[in-house]
C-alpha cells in the first residue's frame, strides 16, 4: 500500500513538473513570437484599401502648383518655374557627394535638434556638397508609426527652394509651428499609413524640412515643433 502511495505521489509530481515547464515554455515562446495578450496586429491590407480610396478621390482634384513663402510646390520638377529648374540643374551638375559635417556647417542648426525619446536615430547625419559647395545636411529617424509599423522621418536642410510633391489645394496648409510659419502637406489619412508627408520651413539659404513616410499627422507636427526650435 505504501509503495502504491509513493508511486502515485511521484507520478503526480512529474505531472505537475511537466505541466509547469510546458506553460513556462509557452510563455517564453509566446512573448518572443507575439504575446497573445497583446492586441492583434492590424490588417494592413484593409487599412491600405481605405488610403487608396482616399488617394484615388484626391487624384481627381487638380494638383497644387504655386509658391508659398518663396517655396515653389508642384508635382514634378518640369512644372517648376524655369529659374528653379535652372538653379537645381546648376547645383547638381557639378556632381553631389558626401562631405564632412564641418564642411557643411553653414547649414547646421542654430541649436541642437532634440526629438522626444520615442524617436530613434536611424543613421548618422549625412552632409552633401554639390559642385564643391555645401548643399544639404540630412538626419534620419524612426518611430513606431501607423499600425505599429516604423515610420521613416527625414529632417533635411537644403539650398533648394522648390518641392516636387503632388498634393491638392485643400492639403497644403500654412501653420505656425513653434513660433515659425511652416508649409504643411499632411498625410491623406490622419494615421499616415503608407503615405508621405511634409513640413517645410522657408529659410534664407533654402529650406528646412521634415519629410516622413508612414507617420501620423500628430507625430509629424511633434517633429516639426522640435525642428522649429532648433532653427531659432
Amino acid at each position: 500500500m505504501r509503495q502504491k502511495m509513493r508511486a502515485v505521489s511521484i507520478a503526480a509530481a512529474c505531472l505537475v513538473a511537466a505541466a509547469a515547464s510546458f506553460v513556462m515554455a509557452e510563455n517564453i515562446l509566446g512573448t518572443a513570437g507575439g504575446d497573445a495578450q497583446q492586441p492583434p496586429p492590424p490588417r494592413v491590407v484593409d487599412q491600405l484599401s481605405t488610403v487608396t480610396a482616399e488617394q484615388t478621390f484626391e487624384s481627381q482634384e487638380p494638383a497644387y502648383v504655386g509658391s508659398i513663402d518663396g517655396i515653389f510646390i508642384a508635382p514634378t520638377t518640369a512644372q517648376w518655374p524655369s529659374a528653379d529648374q535652372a538653379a537645381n540643374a546648376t547645383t547638381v551638375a557639378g556632381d553631389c557627394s558626401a562631405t564632412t559635417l564641418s564642411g557643411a556647417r553653414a547649414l547646421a542648426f542654430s541649436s541642437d535638434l532634440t526629438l522626444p525619446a520615442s524617436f530613434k536615430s536611424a543613421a548618422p547625419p549625412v552632409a552633401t556638397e554639390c559642385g564643391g559647395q555645401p548643399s544639404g545636411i540630412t538626419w534620419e529617424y524612426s518611430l513606431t508609426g501607423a499600425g505599429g509599423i516604423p515610420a521613416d522621418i527625414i529632417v533635411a536642410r537644403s539650398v533648394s527652394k522648390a518641392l516636387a510633391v503632388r498634393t491638392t489645394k485643400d492639403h497644403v496648409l500654412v501653420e505656425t509651428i513653434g513660433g515659425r510659419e511652416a508649409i504643411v502637406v499632411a498625410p491623406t489619412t490622419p494615421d499616415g499609413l503608407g503615405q508621405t508627408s511634409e513640413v517645410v520651413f522657408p529659410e534664407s539659404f533654402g529650406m528646412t524640412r521634415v519629410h516622413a513616410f508612414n507617420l501620423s499627422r500628430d507625430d509629424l507636427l511633434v517633429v516639426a515643433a522640435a525642428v522649429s526650435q532648433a532653427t531659432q
Partner: protein
Amino acid sequence: MKRLIALAAIFGFSAAVALPNNVLGSPTGYTIVASLTPPTLSSGSSANLNCGWHQECDGTYPFGNGLDWEDGGTNYGNPWYFRGIFATNNPAGGIVATGVPLVNTQDPSLCDKMTVWIVEKFNGVLRAAPIYEHTNITNSAQFSIAGSVLGTYTNRQIGTTIDDHGTNCPFDGSHVHEDHVSVNGSVTISTDTSRYQTGAQCHNNHCGLFANNSPTNWTRRFSWPEGS
C-alpha cells in the same frame, strides 16, 4: 525521484517547443520563410556587389543593413526587381503573401526610396519591408506571392534605377541600395554577413558576383509563424 521530476520537466518544455504553433497561439501552425536575393539585372544573371553591409557607403562605412548592387548599365533607367524565395512547411503551398509597392521618398533633393511591403495572406499583417534606394516605381500594382515546401521563386519588376543626384543625396552612379526595416515583433530577421562583406571591406566596384536567383545567395531572410 528528483531525476524523474527533472525528466518530466524537460519533457514538458520540449513538448511545448515541438508542438505546432497553433498550440502556442498561431492559428495555422505553419512557418513562412522569405529569403530575398539580389534585386538587379535580369533573373539568372550574376549581380555585382558594389558595397557590403553598410548604412552609408561614404568613406566611413558605418555598418548597417544596406547592400549596393550594380544595375549593369552606365546609364540610369535599368530595371530593379522584388526578388526572393518563399518557403512554407504547409504541404499544400499556395499564395502566402501580398506584395505592396509603396513610395517612401520621391524627391529631387533627397535620396529616393521605394519599399515593398510583404503582407501575410492569412491574416493581412505586415511582415517585412525591404527598401530599394535610388529607384522609382513603374509598376505599383499589388501582387500575389506564392510559397511551397521547397521554396517558390518570385521575380517581379517594380521599377527602374534613377539619377539620384540631389542637394541631400550623395550619389556616385546608378545602383540599388537594398535595405529593410523591422516591422513586426513576430518576425525573425537574419542577414548573411559571411557571404557579403562589410562596407569597409568591400567598397569598390566588382567586389563579388552573386547569381540573383540562387537560394544560396539570399541577402536578408524574414521568417514568422503564420497567423501569429
